[in-house]
Structure formats: structure tokens, C-alpha cells
């Protein structure tokens, strides 16, 4: 039986969602997308001046990539901003999928739990398929589910820090308490080993951007994350060994030769 990621009724074979920002060039971006195997890519909307309209290399490349679009509401601080930017996304990108961000602080760029729940509820009412960027707070996560979200995207660490999984206790609690909900670690992942650990813990997927785009070789790093995420998922399904406090030999201890000598030694 194939192991697929199901989000809002769609199946994905990749568990790696990738962002499109911060790459040295559009060409490197599209090679990185290809190397990542990502099927869902995030992008955004910003004010445009008419002059730019002509050249929008990145936008052509995204469409060529064949990836499904996941527009975000990055930078929105109020429910009104998030809802209206979401509507504009739906019109331009012709998709009702949305990575919902309602930012609560300019410095740590964390989600605003209060605005997030309110915006999520309104957007679900309007027919959006909302994937909220949230914290690892279990109560917040349940409120988002009550609001109609069918997928949650808790942060690992603040955006762009690469600090990895800052609160394993809370994240493990989320996973244990919401066993049926697709959970995607979004933001803070800096290295493939961290992504692998998230999957080993049972998280369903990882969404990141900076760690690939800011690598010395983004295309190679996209591949590294792809491999690590597959590794983590495979390991989760294969059942990790139980961590032990004390050592135990792998090589058999029975029938060890020289025990006479050993005795002498120990004499």
C-alpha cells in the first residue's frame, strides 16, 4: 500500500513543502524545486508597479514547475489584512488553498493565536482550505480544528533561524494528542537532520524555505532535505529502537575465547 500524504482530500507522494523566496536567482529556485521533489510550493502577493508587469521570470518558472500553489499571507498582522489578501490570492492563483499567517510580533514573527483563529474561521466560512502557520500550543491547535482547519502547521522555531525543534515536549504532545490530524512542521528547520527528526516523531511533512535558499548550494541542499525527509518517514514507519540508558553488546558475549586468560588478567 502506498504511503501518501493526504491534505484536504488530495494525495501527495512528497512530504516536503518548499518556499520560493531568497534564492540567488530564479533559475536556482526552479532547479531547487525540481531537486526537492516538492509538490506544494509557497508564494505570496505584493504591491506591483506597472513597469514590472512584463518581467516576472519566477512566476513563469513556478507555473512551469507543475507544483501546486500554496499562497501565503505573510506579513499580515490583522484578521482583515489576512482575509483580504487571501481573497486576492484566490483570484490570482485560482486556488482556495491557503497558508494562513497572522503575525503577532515583528521580531520573532510568531503567529498571533487570537487573530489566527478568527481569520481561520472566517476563511473556512468563505470556502478556503486553510493551512495555518501556528505555534506548538495544543489548545490553539484544537481551536483551529474547531474553526474548520483540516491541517495544522506548527512552527519548530522562529522563521529563518534554523534552530530546529525548540520544544520537543510540546511537539510530541501535539502528535500524541492529535493522531488523526495532518501536522506539518513549518518554519525554523535549518538542517536535514532536524527535518528527519520531525518525521521520525510522526509529523507528516515539513515546510521550509531559508535552509534551502540560503545554503551554499541550494539545489544540492534541496536534494539533501528530500532524502532526509524520506529517511525520517521510512524510520517512523519502521519503528525506531527504544533508547536505552545502559550499554548492551551487539556481538554475542557467549563463547568468548580466552576466558582463562581473562581470569589471569583479572587476578
Amino acid at each position, binding site marked *: 500500500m502506498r504511503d501518501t500524504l493526504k491534505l484536504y482530500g488530495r494525495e501527495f507522494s512528497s512530504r516536503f513543502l518548499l518556499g520560493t523566496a531568497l534564492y540567488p536567482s530564479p533559475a536556482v529556485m526552479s532547479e531547487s524545486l525540481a531537486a526537492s521533489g516538492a509538490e506544494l510550493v509557497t508564494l505570496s502577493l505584493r504591491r506591483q508597479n*506597472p513597469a514590472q*508587469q512584463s518581467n516576472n521570470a519566477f512566476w513563469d518558472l513556478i507555473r512551469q514547475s507543475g507544483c501546486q500553489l500554496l499562497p501565503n499571507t505573510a506579513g499580515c498582522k490583522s484578521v482583515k489584512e489576512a482575509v483580504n489578501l487571501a481573497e486576492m490570492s484566490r483570484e490570482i492563483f485560482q486556488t482556495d488553498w491557503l497558508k494562513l499567517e497572522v503575525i503577532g510580533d515583528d521580531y520573532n514573527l510568531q503567529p498571533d493565536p487570537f487573530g489566527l483563529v478568527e481569520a481561520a474561521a472566517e476563511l473556512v466560512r468563505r470556502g478556503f482550505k486553510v493551512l495555518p502557520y501556528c505555534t506548538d500550543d495544543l489548545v490553539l491547535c484544537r481551536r483551529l480544528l474547531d474553526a474548520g482547519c483540516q491541517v495544522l502547521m506548527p512552527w519548530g522555531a522562529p522563521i529563518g533561524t534554523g534552530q530546529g525543534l525548540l520544544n520537543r515536549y510540546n511537539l510530541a504532545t501535539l502528535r500524541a494528542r492529535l493522531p488523526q490530524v495532518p501536522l506539518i512542521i513549518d518554519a525554523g528547520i535549518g538542517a536535514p537532520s532536524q527535518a528527519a527528526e520531525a518525521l521520525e516523531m510522526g509529523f507528516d511533512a515539513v515546510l521550509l524555505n531559508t535552509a534551502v535558499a540560503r545554503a551554499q548550494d541550494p539545489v544540492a541542499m534541496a536534494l539533501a532535505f528530500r532524502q532526509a525527509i524520506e529517511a525520517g518517514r521510512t524510520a517512523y514507519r519502521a519503528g525506531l529502537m527504544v533508547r536505552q540508558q545502559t550499554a548492551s553488546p551487539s556481538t554475542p558475549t557467549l563463547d568468548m575465547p580466552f576466558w582463562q586468560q581473562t581470569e589471569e588478567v583479572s587476578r
Partner: protein
Amino acid sequence: MSEIQINGQRHRLENCKTLERALEQAGFTGEAFAVAVNGEFVPRGQYAQIQLEGGDCLDVVAPVVGG
């Protein structure tokens, strides 16, 4: 002579009172943008009907990279 703002820039609002004309005048053509007036999204289908007034704030947005 009243004024509007488009993406934070002042624009003179002449005899063109509809959103559609204002966008044309400002050089926005094609499909690859979406619009909000005073922070409220306006579907493309309504551009022709919407009458602008002095002080209106337009946002015209287009796709950009994002994380």
C-alpha cells in the same frame, strides 16, 4: 481636483471615476494582478461598476516569491 492612492502613491483622479479606468490609466493591464480598495478585496468582475472617490486607497498586488 481630488486624489486617490495606488500602492501608497498619490494619483490624480480625473474624469475617470471607475476603478477599471483608474487602473488602465495607472497602467495596470492583463490578468496578473488583484485589487483591494480601502483594504477590501474587489473581484475583477466589479472593476467596471466600482466608483472611486477622492482619498480612496487602492492596493494592486501581483505574485512574488514567498516562504
